[in-house]
């Protein structure tokens, strides 16, 4: 059970990460991976093997849309946030914030963490 929650949590947060990076601008897979890594000061390395299935899942859910770009030398599949995806991102971000605050409060109670200003997200 604990594993399930954890993997759900992880998946939820990965969705959030990808959606947030795409919210800045449309990206193709490789670019998205790099942007994620750069935006998180190399803290988050989403492997291609995880990222592509995730992108396809988000696309199926209608949160992102994709199109092939033939104009460059290399054919690329660009992903873009849909209106639905944007709504979802806002909602998920709120939830995440609440969740993080909640966990933080709990940990603060038992003095496991000292409250710090949230790092850039």
């Amino acid at each position, binding site marked *: 059970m604990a594993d399930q929650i954890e993997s759900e949590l992880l998946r939820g947060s990965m969705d959030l990460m990808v959606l947030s990076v795409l919210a800045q601008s449309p990206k193709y897979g490789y670019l998205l991976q790099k942007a994620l890594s750069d935006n998180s000061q190399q803290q988050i390395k989403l492997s291609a093997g*995880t990222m592509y299935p995730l992108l396809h899942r988000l696309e*199926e859910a209608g949160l992102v849309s994709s199109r092939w770009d033939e104009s460059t030398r290399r054919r690329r599949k660009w992903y873009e946030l849909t209106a639905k995806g944007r709504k979802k991102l806002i909602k998920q971000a709120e939830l995440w914030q609440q969740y993080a605050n909640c966990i933080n409060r709990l940990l603060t109670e038992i003095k496991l963490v000292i409250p710090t200003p949230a790092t850039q997200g």
Partner: protein
Amino acid sequence: MSEREFEHYLTLLGSMLRLRPEQRAEIAEELQQHLDERLQDLQAAGLSREDAIQQALAEFGDAAGLAAQFSSVSRRRYRRWMMRAATASVTSAFMVLVLFVSFWPTGGRIELALPTTAQDTNPPASESPVESADPFTTEADLPTTKTKSTVTSREAKNADTRVQLETESAFELSDASLSDLSLMLAERLQHGCLLDYRRMEEEGVDRESGNLNWNLTNASLGTMLETLLDEVQLTYQIRDGILVITSQSAADDDLSLVIYDAEVLFSSAVVVVRNEANPVEEMLLQLVQQSSDLGKIELDSLQASIDRLSEKFGSQQARMRFNQVADLIETQVDPNSWEVNGGVASISSVGNRLIVRQTERTHRKIRKLLDDLAATNGL
């Protein structure tokens, strides 16, 4: 070497993606572009091509895991089974089976080279395809004509489904639920497939449960069905041709009655009986031929005697053989399920037909046994 590895990886991945070909091609291309781009960057950063390939692949993770993830995306997409079926081969296999089934009673009869003397009292029975032309067993034949139409349509549907369960085909199920399985079967079976929700729920089995996987290419539909249902401890029935997935206890409560035309099983054996094991008839025949001085009436009455004796002897032989088959079935096929051993199933015979009340699964085993016996002339 490494170049090869790169290609192998993509080929392997492609082959493991359980998706429609166009989806597969698209995913393969997207991943290939990514790998190429990564390769370029790594080489630009100073890695040798070989090292770059190694690293790019390592970052990607194993092909099997990746393929499974994509397939699971697709599964969520359809919430249903994915299957590749060689439709043409299934159809042709089915046609062959239908032909086989519809012709075999005739085939069995043709084998019986009857002496004209015996046939005189029994004109060839052409009015009914199930009636036997064999004088040894005619008296015991079932009068099936009256109830035929309704019984036949229902039985014919059941028989269709049983035949279709024996068709072999290549299909794949990936992490399918019971609903998925029943959808798949509904498409493959002419008369459809249902889930008996009520009885399944009584056993605490949910229709969306099951983590069913199948990718054997040479197994029959029935074998797949039974193997997968074993995993969730369910079974099936056939009602009006419809395959019903249900609980074990429901199947035990409501046995199927199947009438086996075992004539085909005995045809060759009966010929042997006539040729070798009926000394009385042979003796009398010789007597008739040698007695040129006998009058017409006496000849006729002798002929009648021969027929009676032949019939009696023949039906006795047949009876013995049926008992043998019944014994064989009761001892070889799920012995504990039979009435004689304290179970609920039963077996009886009328004429040259075995009447068996059993679960559908055991019927399948009986069919296999009888087929094997017929194929080897095992009696």
